[in-house]
């Protein structure tokens, strides 16, 4: 079973995403910001990371750069969540190697289809 790490400072967003992903057969780990998420990267196999960009403590792009330094997570696919307005953040994220973007607000099924393009349950 594929495991997905969901990082967002909004609890309700994490919940909705988790419910959708679990319903589709994925296993989900949640984290509330970049720092929290880094602490969960303890060698556990993670097949996909979904991360918000703007978060307190550590933002999504810094997190991504840190995660890529760990051998286990060097090639883990990442979906970044962004808002329409976050264009310059997107450029920064692209430079850090993020290619998959989902624009907020999104519907659960949009997230599911994005996820299933990258990993099967």
């Amino acid at each position: 079973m594929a495991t997905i790490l969901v990082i967002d400072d909004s609890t309700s967003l994490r919940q909705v995403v988790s419910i959708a992903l679990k319903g589709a057969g994925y296993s989900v780990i949640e984290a509330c910001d970049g720092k929290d998420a880094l602490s969960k990267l303890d060698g556990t196999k993670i097949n996909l990371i979904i991360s918000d960009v703007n978060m307190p403590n550590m933002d999504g792009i810094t997190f991504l750069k840190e995660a890529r330094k760990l051998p286990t997570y060097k090639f883990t696919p990442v979906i970044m969540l962004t808002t329409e307005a976050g264009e310059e953040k997107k450029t920064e994220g692209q430079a850090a190697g993020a290619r998959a973007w989902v624009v907020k607000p999104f519907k659960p099924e949009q997230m599911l289809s994005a996820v299933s393009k990258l990993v099967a349950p």
Partner: protein
Amino acid sequence: MNLDEALDTFVAEAEELLGNMEDALLGMKRGSAAEDAIHAIFRAAHTIKGSAGLFGLDFVVGFTHTAESVLDLVRAGELEMDAAMVELMLEVCDHLGSLISLVRQGDLPDADLQGSASLLTARLQNYLEKNNPPSLPEVEAAGVVSDCWHISLRFGQDVLRYGMDPFSFIRYLGKMGRIVGMHTLTDGIPRLSAMDPESCHLGFEIRFESAADKETIESVFDFVKEDCRIVILAPHSMIEKYRILIEELPEDDMLLGEILVKCGSLTQNELDAALRIQASAPIGEVLVGQGMVRAPVVEAALEKQKQGRDAKAGEVSLIRVDSSKLDRLIDLVGELIIVGSSASLFAQRSGVAELLEITSSMSRMVEEVRDTALSLRMVQIGATFNRFQRVVHDVSRELGKDIRLEIGGAETELDKVVVEKIADPLTHLVRNSMDHGIEPEAARIASGKPACGTLKLNAYHDSGSIVIEVSDDGGGLNREKILKKAIEKGIVAADANLADQEICQLIFEAGFSTADKVSNLSGRGVGMDVVRRNIQDLRGSIELDSVEGQGTTTRIRLPLTLSIIDGCQVAVGKSSYVIPLDMVIECIEFEGGQDEAGQSGYLNLRGEVLPYLRLREYFEVDEAAQKRQNVVVVQYAGRRAGLVVDSLLGELQTVIKPLGRMFGGVKGIGGFTILGSGEVALILDVQRLLQQAEEREQKNSGRNLTIMEESRS
């Protein structure tokens, strides 16, 4: 609200739009946001042109049209709105302002204003010509047999490093349809010792069966679209597109071609055709075959040679003549004909043999002069048709539909004046067909048609007329919808019993619009009723054939020339009438008694039913009928009818003089001419008369009239 009030509204609206246009232009001059300003400017010109067309303000339409075309190119990003153009557009804006104030006063532009209009138009035209790319040579335009999508993927080398697995996308694609055939390209993969194992070297050719649309299929690869070369070809795509695919991909052409055949996306024949097109230049083939030069180099060189040759040939054989000089010549020839027939008449009366001989040979010469003069003004319709390549190209891109244009009968000749006047209605019909006729790609595929729509322009001569056809292979007209709309709009009565054919023609009625929503395109220009009016002003007619699900053909029938015709002169009482000779089939003696009541009826023509119309009653000629009467059998657009007249006076050449405005409403008369004797003869508008004959008969008999179709054997 009446038309005058509506015109006031138009003036007010136009003034407001011109104000916006000026503001936007001045804003651009100061360097404010260009995108919105360009849209505002275009919108102003576009709206003014559209409304002016509805009011028949041709001088406004004509002038605005060129400006709009230039702005259209700016909007599409094909022209740049530089400082010079801003200045020009400001002048355009001012000129439009003057035109609109003329409209307010109910005046027409004077010579001065016309002069400045043509200067401005010429300057605008400059931009258009600069931007008109040379038309592409015709390529083999057949679609491939395969009814599947073809997807060609070359993943960028960093894809794997971003954590993305090419196969995950292919698996996802598999959820959207069926992967019928797939070839994994291994050629790009180096040997292990030379390989960077984290770089991606994979490519795929996929034959994919799915009901999804192109956008949906594209979205599968959203996350890799920046790092990946993706080509998606719709089912039944042109072989040309496969040729481009083969050419543009890095692999060896032959190898890639074989892969496409293996996937089933191309048949061997189609591959051969594609490779043949590729190597079409004969000298080039040899050179490339010998490995001396690369194909594109040769093609470019040959193309250049050809252009040079064409230009040279053109210089030698053509001179440019101001068309107003030609018009003057035709006018003079017209006068010459009238004077000539006068002379013949008096020669006959005088009975002097030598004079008769001279006048008859003079008539022959005059006839030749007439034909030659007219032929000077005859141009092939091909050039007009070819202009539509661009229109079709642009519009299909705008609509997101894949539509190609087929041209037939390009060498068919017709009067230059007619060609000029037909361009606008034709543009409207073409746009209409593309917008409303041809369905979106998904719908076409669903109904088993090739993804690429076809629009056909065709022209041919038919009994003294030229017929121009605009046909599409789209969805055809929905008769129920049309009828419903027509009843809604009060164009026909709710209980009207109409034949299919008649329902189709309803779209030409004033106030009828088929579009549910006003799209960018259908909003452009004029309505179908205006198209019909334009055609009728040219003494032509328009009709429409449509098979639901298979397409629509609009047929415009026009006289070959507008000014001089061969006619058959007839008399009713003391009045003379002229029937265009092209439309006369035969003349027979009328056997029905004069005492028979009514204007019209049927007669038996060698076993066929022929509706007839008595001109005496129709034109309310008071004198009593002669004992013997004749029937002139006329034919127009496949329909026949008889016109009952007193006597037949023979053939003659006539110059058509238009009737004054006062007589514009007289039905059945197309113009008048001055006979050699100085008398006036009326020229019959056979098309209207035929219509009237049918209508009356329908009313009289209270049943549908079966129109005699000409049997084409």
